[in-house]
Structure formats: structure tokens, C-alpha cells
């Protein structure tokens, strides 16, 4: 029997507003524990939440960018549960009347475009952060937990896809594209490692050709695109082995273990969660009229798909087009460099190749590095002028990434500038010719191979700094 993979993804994105969803505490990653808290986000008796208007706008922005309908009327609800990461014992969330519904996102996997449905985008608040103490931090074996409520109440968007994804690879492409959209919108920093963008996946298999869904398993704890794909590949294999052996798949939540490369069951839901949702009595409904929706829609920036199409029509290869269309920092640098006259593909190659590799090695983000559009344009110009060789350009780029200064000063500092000035090279060439009369004779006999030897001699005499193209031109002139 052949099986078809069915995947749906639930993504959570923390918004980069200044203050929390329902109170004025700052949204500030890395603040000392329990300092960004107030009576509202601590759930102290009598405290009343008030909705952050900007968070609603950001949520609409995400919904519109994902082609959703914006509900004219939406409400908040209380999701009740006992878990110490929410001091109120409930989370304010949207439930049966979310802000955005029925959208889609087109995802390109190796040139094959699939339209992935977006069920809904709703607003909620993030929970506090718990650290499990004892036995290596594993939740099941912890003796107790430490709580930091700085994150409790941070605006959180939940984006739910339809079960339209058909492979782990496509699921990864979907999340990469979604992250690109969020970054372009500028509503979240969407950092996977730091958890400002997180995702869970629902995976099931069904006989190929079937339209009914199989039993699904929820997989959690993937914190990179790579681990998402690996976890899903593992889960698909696990379910397929069960089904092929005629055994049932158990509906459960499974935890991805990055080091072991496997998933394990988290807990059996002997008593299914009963969140007892009810409308949040402390918050009035949100109503969006046409004028408000049109204003937000009109302010949408260029999205990755549009940017990618623009770059592709300018002749950029797909890998480069993906990077500069999804990563706004790379996109800005690319636009600035090409506007300053640098060749688009050259700049794109640096960004996708050398720069990406250097950043990874040094664990830096593009913003933290010294790379600027003006810097790359300057570097490209130096290569075009023949003042830098391709290999010297890479060395200069490493200096630029490390923030050592602009290309001109780095090249001077490291003594990498090529000499291509004829008047400077001419005397050196003369010296080399005078010292090698045999070679000169061969050159005049039309022996083309000897020119390589002579170029090598000039390079040696200049300590490798002569521009080989300029030296060749001079030598050809002499031999004519």
C-alpha cells in the first residue's frame, strides 16, 4: 500500500509591539526575570485587561498578507486551564470568532507551486516561561519548576494552516515562506531559536487516493526549519511502519528530540483537555469596518512572492531570489548595493554564499554584522576596477562581516589592493623581460605558453599584487 502524507501546521508568532497585549508592561526579550510584570499580566484580583490597538493592526496585517477575510466582528475568550505558566489560570485567546479566517499562502517547492489554505489567524497572549529543575531539565522528571512571567501577556498570533501540506519538505517550505511574510511585514522578529516564532505540526497518513483523514499525531518542539523537516520525516516513517504492520496510529502529542532524532509520546490524554472556553467578560468585541480594513490593506509592504517575481524577472537565480525576498535585512542590503550600481547577481552570490557562511560560523545575524549595501557596492566596484582579485574580495568581505570597516580601508590594511596601473607595472615587466632573455626570444617566436611563465615572474616581483589581466595586456603589447 502506498501512503499519502497529510500535514497541517500551527504557527505562533510573538509581535514586536512595545507593550504587552493587555497591559503596558514592556515586550523586552532578555530582561531580568519577573521585572516586566504588573497586576494585569500577573492576574491579580481586580486588574482589568485593555487591548493593545497596535497588536490588532498587526494581526490584521498578517491576516491580509495571508489573503484572509477580516471578520467584521470578533471577540476574545477565556481558555481555562491549570498550568502555572499562566498566573490567571486562563489564557485570553480568540476562539469561535477569530479576527482573520479563510486565507492562503502559495508555496513553491522546487518550482512546483501549491496553494496552502490558512484556516485562521487569531490573537492571544503568550504564557510565562518555565524552567524545569532537576534531572536535566526534562519536564517529566523535574522536581520543581521556576517561573518567569516577563513573557506572560506578550501579544501572540496563532496562524493555523489547513491540512494541505503533502510532504515534510513542503511543510518546511511553507514555514520558510510564512516566516518571510512575517519578517517583511515587520510585525515580529520571528526568531526560531529564541522562540518568537514557534510551530507544531499535525501529521497523518492515508492510503493514496483516499479523501478521508487518518489518525493524526501532533509533533512539538522543533526549533529550526531543519528540525521541522527532520521531525516530520521521522514521524512519517514511524507511522508508515505502524500502518504497514497493520497496527493503529495512536492519537497523541509527540515530542521531537533533536539529539536522538526521534519523537516520543508526551502524555496520554486519558482525560481530554476541556478548556471550557467562554467569552472574556472583561473585553468588548473588536469590530473592523471597511475603511479600517482598506487602510491596513493599503499599507501592506511588498511581500516575498512579489519581490521574488521582481528579482527573477531581473535575472536573479532562485536561491538568491529566495534569500533577498524573504529576509528583509538581506533585501535592503541587496537593494542598496544594486541601486549604487553593483551587479545584482554578484551581490546576491556574496549574500547567499560567503556572507551567509561567515555569519553562521561567527553566529551573527546580518544586522549585527558590518555588512551594508554601500559596502558591498564599494567592494563590487573594486573588483570591477581590477583593484581586488576575486579571492582578495572574499578576504575583504570577511573583514566587512567582522565589522572592521569599509572595503577600501580593509583592503589597504591587509595590503590586498592589486596593482593594475600600467605606468606602475611597466617598469616591473621591463625588469622581468631583461632578466629572462630566453623567454623573451620564445615570446617573439610566438610561443604562447611562455607568457604564463612571465606573468608568474611579474607576480613574484610584485609580491602577488599585480593584476594578472593588466600584466597580460602589457606582455601581449611587447610581443606584438
Amino acid at each position, binding site marked *: 500500500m502506498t501512503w499519502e502524507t497529510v500535514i497541517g501546521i500551527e504557527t505562533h508568532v510573538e509581535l514586536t*509591539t*512595545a*507593550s504587552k497585549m493587555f*497591559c*503596558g*508592561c*514592556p515586550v523586552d526579550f532578555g530582561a*531580568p*526575570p*519577573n*521585572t*516586566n*510584570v*504588573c*497586576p494585569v499580566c*500577573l492576574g491579580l484580583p481586580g486588574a482589568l485587561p*485593555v*487591548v*493593545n*490597538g*497596535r*497588536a*490588532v493592526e498587526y494581526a490584521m496585517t498578517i491576516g491580509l498578507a495571508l489573503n484572509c477575510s477580516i471578520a467584521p*466582528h470578533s*471577540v476574545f475568550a477565556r481558555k*481555562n486551564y*491549570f*498550568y*502555572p505558566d499562566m498566573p490567571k489560570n486562563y489564557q485570553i485567546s480568540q476562539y469561535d*470568532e477569530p479576527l482573520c479566517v479563510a486565507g492562503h499562502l502559495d508555496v513553491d517547492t522546487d518550482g512546483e507551486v501549491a496553494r496552502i489554505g490558512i484556516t485562521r489567524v487569531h490573537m492571544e497572549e503568550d504564557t510565562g516561561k*518555565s*524552567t*524545569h*529543575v*532537576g534531572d536535566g531539565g526534562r*519536564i*517529566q522528571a*523535574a*522536581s*520543581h*519548576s*521556576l*517561573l*518567569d*512571567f516577563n513573557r506572560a501577556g506578550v501579544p501572540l498570533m496563532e496562524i493555523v494552516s489547513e491540512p494541505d501540506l503533502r510532504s515534510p519538505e513542503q511543510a518546511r517550505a511553507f514555514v520558510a515562506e510564512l516566516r518571510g511574510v512575517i519578517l517583511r511585514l515587520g510585525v515580529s522578529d520571528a526568531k526560531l531559536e529564541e522562540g518568537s516564532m514557534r510551530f507544531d505540526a499535525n501529521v497523518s497518513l492515508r492510503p493514496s487516493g483516499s479523501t478521508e483523514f487518518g489518525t493524526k499525531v501532533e509533533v512539538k518542539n522543533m526549533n529550526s526549519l531543519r528540525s521541522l523537516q527532520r521531525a516530520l520525516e521521522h514521524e512519517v516513517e514511524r507511522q508508515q511502519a505502524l500502518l504497514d504492520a497493520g497496527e493503529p496510529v495512536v492519537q497523541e502529542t509527540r515530542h521531537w528530540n533533536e539529539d536522538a532524532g526521534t519523537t516520543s509520546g508526551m*502524555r496520554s490524554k486519558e*482525560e481530554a483537555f*476541556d478548556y*471550557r472556553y467562554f*467569552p472574556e*467578560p472583561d*473585553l*468588548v*468585541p*473588536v*469590530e473592523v469596518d471597511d475603511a479600517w480594513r482598506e487602510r491596513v490593506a493599503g499599507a501592506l509592504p511588498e511581500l516575498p512572492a512579489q519581490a521574488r517575481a521582481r528579482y527573477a524577472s531581473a535575472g536573479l537565480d532562485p536561491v538568491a531570489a529566495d534569500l533577498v525576498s524573504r529576509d528583509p535585512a538581506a533585501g535592503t542590503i541587496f537593494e542598496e548595493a544594486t541601486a549604487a550600481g553593483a551587479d545584482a547577481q554578484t551581490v546576491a552570490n556574496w549574500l547567499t554564499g560567503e556572507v551567509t557562511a561567515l555569519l553562521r560560523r561567527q553566529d551573527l545575524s546580518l544586522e549585527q554584522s558590518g555588512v551594508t549595501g554601500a559596502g558591498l557596492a564599494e567592494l563590487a566596484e573594486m573588483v570591477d576596477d581590477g583593484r581586488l582579485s576575486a579571492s582578495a574580495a572574499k578576504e575583504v568581505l570577511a573583514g566587512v562581516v567582522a565589522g572592521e570597516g569599509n572595503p577600501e580601508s580593509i583592503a589597504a590594511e591587509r595590503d590586498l589592493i592589486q596593482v593594475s596601473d600600467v605606468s606602475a607595472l611597466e617598469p616591473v615587466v621591463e625588469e622581468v623581460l631583461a632578466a629572462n632573455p630566453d623567454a623573451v626570444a620564445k615570446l617573439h617566436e610566438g610561443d604562447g605558453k611562455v607568457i604564463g611563465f612571465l606573468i608568474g615572474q611579474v607576480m613574484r616581483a610584485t609580491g602577488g599584487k599585480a593584476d594578472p589581466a593588466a600584466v597580460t595586456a602589457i606582455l601581449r603589447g611587447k610581443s606584438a
Partner: protein
Amino acid sequence: MPVEIDIAKVARLARLSLTDEQLERYRVQCEVVLEHAARVQALPTEGVAPTSHPLPRTNVFREDEVAECLDREEVLAAAPDRDGDYFLVPRILDE
């Protein structure tokens, strides 16, 4: 309009530890409330929009501005237990 309720489950969901006598007393009281709700539910409400909130107001928003937070010592003073700058709670999952 009799309504049956699993009062033990309701107590469990609310993390309440009740005696048999209490369970029975609350079962009777809750069923009275639910019977009333059932009578309301039986009313003809086609064409009436569901009410999520009693006040005729919408779109009450706050500017996205940072306000003052509480002092951490004051906050942690109210905690049953602490470890340094953190709230300390018992282990979360039984397993």
C-alpha cells in the same frame, strides 16, 4: 427539564477536592442553574445575534505605550515560594 451533571468531573476540572456530601450538595445546586439555562435555551432565538458582552461598546483599545511595572520584590513577596528571582512551583506533570 431535568439536566444531569457529572459533578465529580466539574470538581476535577476546577481542581477542587470535595467530600461526598459537598459533591451531592453542589450537584443539586448546579443542576438547578443548568435547568434554568436549558429553559432559556429553549426560547425561539432565530435571527437574534449571540451576545458575547452585555455592554453596547466595541473597540476599546489602548495605545501601544509602555507603563510602569511592579517592583520585583513586591511581586515575589506574594509568592508561596521563590528561588532567587523566580517563582518556585511544584513539578508540573505527574509521570
